[in-house]
């Protein structure tokens, strides 16, 4: 069963740069996820100032804007998709993630299963 771990960075400075992470912790976690054989995919996202939003209006007009910028303190900083037997296992991996500490949090979302 696949779960998406959405990693919300806690402390972010004025430029949307995550200030709370220690690179070594992330490397160690990433290695654990891969060594355990549960890793499906995962990426760390570039700083929020580099984000661009696209919407298409009802008349087909494309609207491109800079941002979004953090209005809450939590900013999506990266994600993992892991394949584990059940929610308890997914919650354990989320709890071990460095992004869950401090002001950060990890949202666990099961990937929809269409019976394939």
């Amino acid at each position, binding site marked *: *069963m696949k779960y998406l771990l959405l990693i919300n960075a806690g402390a972010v400075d004025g430029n949307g740069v995550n200030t709370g992470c220690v690179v070594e912790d992330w490397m160690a976690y990433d290695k654990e996820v891969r060594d355990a054989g549960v890793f499906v995919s995962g990426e760390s996202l570039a700083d929020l100032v580099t984000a661009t939003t696209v919407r298409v209006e009802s008349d087909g007009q494309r609207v491109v804007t800079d941002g979004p910028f953090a209005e809450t303190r939590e900013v999506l900083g990266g994600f993992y998709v892991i394949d*584990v*037997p*059940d929610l*308890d296992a997914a919650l354990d991996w989320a709890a071990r993630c460095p992004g869950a500490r401090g002001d950060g949090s990890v949202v666990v979302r*099961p990937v929809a299963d269409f*019976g394939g």
Partner: protein
Amino acid sequence: MDAGAAGDVAPDEASPAPHGTPIESVAAVFREERGRLLAALVRRFGDLDLAEEAASEAVEAALMSWPVHGVPPRPGAWLMTTARRRVIDRLRRDQAYAARLAILQAEADRAGPVAAPQADDDLPDERLLLFFTCAHPALPTEDRGALTLRFLAGLTTAEVARAFLVPVETMAKRITRAKKKIGEARIPFRVPAADELPQRLPGVLQAVYSIFTEGYAASAGPRLQRIDLAEEAIRLARILRRLLPAEREVAGLCALMLLVHARRDARTGPDGELVLLDDQDRGRWDRAMIEEGLGLVRVALTGGPPGRYGVQAAIAALHDEAADVATTDWPQIVALYDVLLALTGSPIVAVNRAVAVAMRDGPQAGSVLLDALAGEALLRDYRPYAVARADLLHRAGRHAEAADAYRRALDLAGTAPERDLLRRRLDTIEQPGTPEG
């Protein structure tokens, strides 16, 4: 009941009772067996919907058969055999579902040790895993008691809705949503390992206690207590106690509920009005229940640091053992509230502690403590806080302030008997000379 090791008890092999069985005793058997049946099916097939469907069909089959042929010697085994056959039929009809279930089962086995194989006619007690699923931290707190009533106490959705005083459609939606989350997010059916237990057991106990408190002090409505609900909670706690005999907090929760419930008959007057502890006829307390509770308090407080339910039970025990309010051991009660406050940090505990201090040192001392809690957000609309404040001001002779405080308490909803009591108190202040009650 415990299924023995004898051979397969198929529905058609059950020995018929000579004159059939009255429908009421059939219903009584279901109440006892339904939770067990459901848990055993969930453990075996790993799917709550399938287990519920099969359990219902087995119960229906029993309703047809038992009144005619009599309750079989091992009703649980009969139900399990019937339910298993229904599952197998269903899976034969729906190969895609069967394939999906096989994958689920393989993954579940990969996740944890495979249970010892059970004989087909055996109905093992797997209810503990269902308790933990119903109280899983990923489910909304307010739904956990409802799920426990639904799946472990065997209540229908309509009965659960009545228990929590919400419309049936609302409760049906909540239960459906929770079941969807259990199924789709795959909340596992498992008993947490020993190292996870300290984190997970409080959730289970809280779910059972929430059923009890809803029965003990209904949050709204015409009646003050709903005894059936409190008794259902006690029944569930007794099951937990059997399944987790080494957990002292389970004993503590059992003890707390027994020691409080022992006062049920004295708590309401002839017209359904609320009778407070001070005015209760202690001769109407249930001595046998108190004795049982006292035995469990000793278990809860022996052999390690006390837990919150054990300490609350000890407080209830001191009340139950006292001949009247005046001779109650208030210093000891205050000391226990100190322990409870350290364990929970709860402002609600602080309110109760302040009331105990008032009994030990006088209403003025209690009032000061209550006033210091005025800034707590959690207490802003908490009726017992408003009532306690009003009562202490009243006893301290600060009548104008007391009247304001009673009006404030009346602004916060409550059951009709509670409101009547507050109005009577308010009348006493506003028309001195009128005897209270």
